[in-house]
């Protein structure tokens, strides 16, 4: 069974063709690197999968069912979550509050319902333990390192029981030690059977966690091969256009 299949997907914005004839398949639990220069069509592809807008043509299948996402909520409801580059966290709230934001656990007291702080903190702590991240549920996100913020954003997707997680440049702008932390988080997701599409500019990251690499150039897919049959040199050549396709 394939988790996600794109068939001949294309997208035009007015006269601009952002994406044409893209075919790709993601299997359950697979970690795939998506690479390409700025303007290669990565973001457009990700936004189609995440449900920000529908493709102009082509089909999207999730778990062998054709899907038509028009809003991010549609994609989320089938199990596709996005970890945004800016992480989309509220700095002034605690880690647990961010993890449960928009789906707070409540306790009924008579006609009123109040937040169940204790259970939310416990479940968040359990998620962090599972991700082996040293992050406290009741610490404010403002005071956290880049790696801890990633853990919070990823814990959110775990809570949603995601089957596919799109990660947009998770290692941009964080320290070397934190990069290692984030890559570990991605390995934990794979261990838990969750598929990850890692959008990244960083060759070492892709080559250390991904099983497969997809390269985009000028709106088309120019390569899609197992990581052990490729090399950073080849991928660089594909991204820049020095090599046409592989």
């Amino acid at each position, binding site marked *: 069974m394939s988790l996600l299949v794109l068939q001949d997907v294309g997208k035009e914005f007015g006269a601009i063709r952002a994406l044409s004839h893209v075919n790709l398949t993601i299997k359950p639990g697979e970690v795939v690197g998506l690479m390409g220069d700025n303007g290669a069509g990565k973001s457009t592809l990700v936004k189609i999968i995440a449900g920000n807008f529908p493709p102009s043509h082509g089909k999207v299948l999730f778990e062998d069912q054709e899907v038509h996402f028009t809003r991010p909520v549609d994609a989320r409801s089938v199990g596709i979550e996005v970890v945004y580059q800016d992480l*989309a966290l*509220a*700095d002034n709230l605690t880690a647990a509050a961010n993890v449960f934001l928009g789906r707070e656990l409540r306790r009924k007291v008579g006609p009123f319902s109040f937040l169940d702080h204790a259970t939310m903190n416990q479940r968040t702590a359990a998620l*962090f333990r599972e991700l082996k991240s040293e992050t406290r549920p009741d610490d404010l996100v403002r005071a956290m390192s880049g790696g801890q913020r990633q853990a919070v954003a990823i814990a959110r997707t775990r809570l949603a029981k995601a089957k596919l997680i799109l990660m947009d440049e998770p290692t941009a702008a964080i320290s070397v030690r934190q990069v290692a932390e984030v890559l570990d988080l991605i390995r934990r997701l794979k261990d838990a059977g969750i598929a990850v599409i890692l959008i990244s500019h960083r060759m070492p990251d892709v080559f*250390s966690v991904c099983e497969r690499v997809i390269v985009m150039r000028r709106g088309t897919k120019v390569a899609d091969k197992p990581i052990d049959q490729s090399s950073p040199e080849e991928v660089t050549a594909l991204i820049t256009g020095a090599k046409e396709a592989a």
Partner: protein
Amino acid sequence: MSEFSPATGTEASDFSNVGRARWWRRGFFASQTAYVAAALIVIMIVMSFLSSAFLSPGNLANVAKNFSFVGIVTLGVTLVIVTGGIDLSVGSTMALSAITCAIVMQGLSGTVLDSIPLAGMVISLGAGLGAALLIGLANGVLIARVGLSPFVTTLGMLSIVRGLAYAVTEGRGQAPTGPDVNLFYEITDGNIAGVPVAIIYLLILAAVIGLVLHHTAFGRHVFALGGNEKAAALTGIAVERVKIAVYVLSALSAGFAGILMVGWLGSAPANLATGYELTIIAAAVIGGANLNGGIGGPAGAVIGALLIEVIRNGLVLAGINAYWQIVLVGGIIILAVLVDRLRTLRMTS
């Protein structure tokens, strides 16, 4: 491809390499609200030595009543500020609600409703709060749904509502009349066990708002909006609805305080609470609400409003020219924010 070693070998629960601030450097104790509260206590102690009249029951009751009106509205405006918005229309809303309440009470007296106990008063209170509700709804819809800037929208509303207050009354004060008027004065300007009712309303409302902000999903969403509105929208929070709700609550708090002021003044003049919006926003900011959104609470609103009133009262008792209080309040606003700024600089360095 294992050039990266695992991030850590320790159990996630021991946090050996993650520092944590000491208890007095985080949470409430590290907040602007806490040290403004400390400053307030110091000022009150100094005042009581400087003027024997300060702690007299009469003066305390006076201070309590005066700051309660501002305090109640500050609670509502703090909600708006926490979402990252602003509400400049509250002073005008206080006036229009007060006038609506008084005029409806006048209009109903002498009609058949006189024979039904409380009917006239309940309807006029409802009308006053209803006027506030409509103003809040207009603000909220224009800001949340149409996407206008909160500053400009509520600045316009300030003028529209104040203009309506003058137009409706033709500038004449409106006194409440009718069979229930004594009861009206009792519930707006009475005392319970010697304590002015206004401050009792303030404390109850502060407790309720504290409960809502920190222990309900709505309250959490209010904070999330101020922290990162885009993130809040992405998580599926009904951003528009939360925003409209805070502007409605802000207007309702203003309407309620305006009606209490009618009881206090015995009349609803068209210039009631003119310029109060600035005192109210000042009280919220002194109490620790951050105009960038995401930070603030009812304790700060009450403490900020009290601090302004205590200083005003102290200057009066000390026989200092009343105009200086305006200068001093401005100075305190800047000082409170400055101290907070210095503290965060020290923490991040």
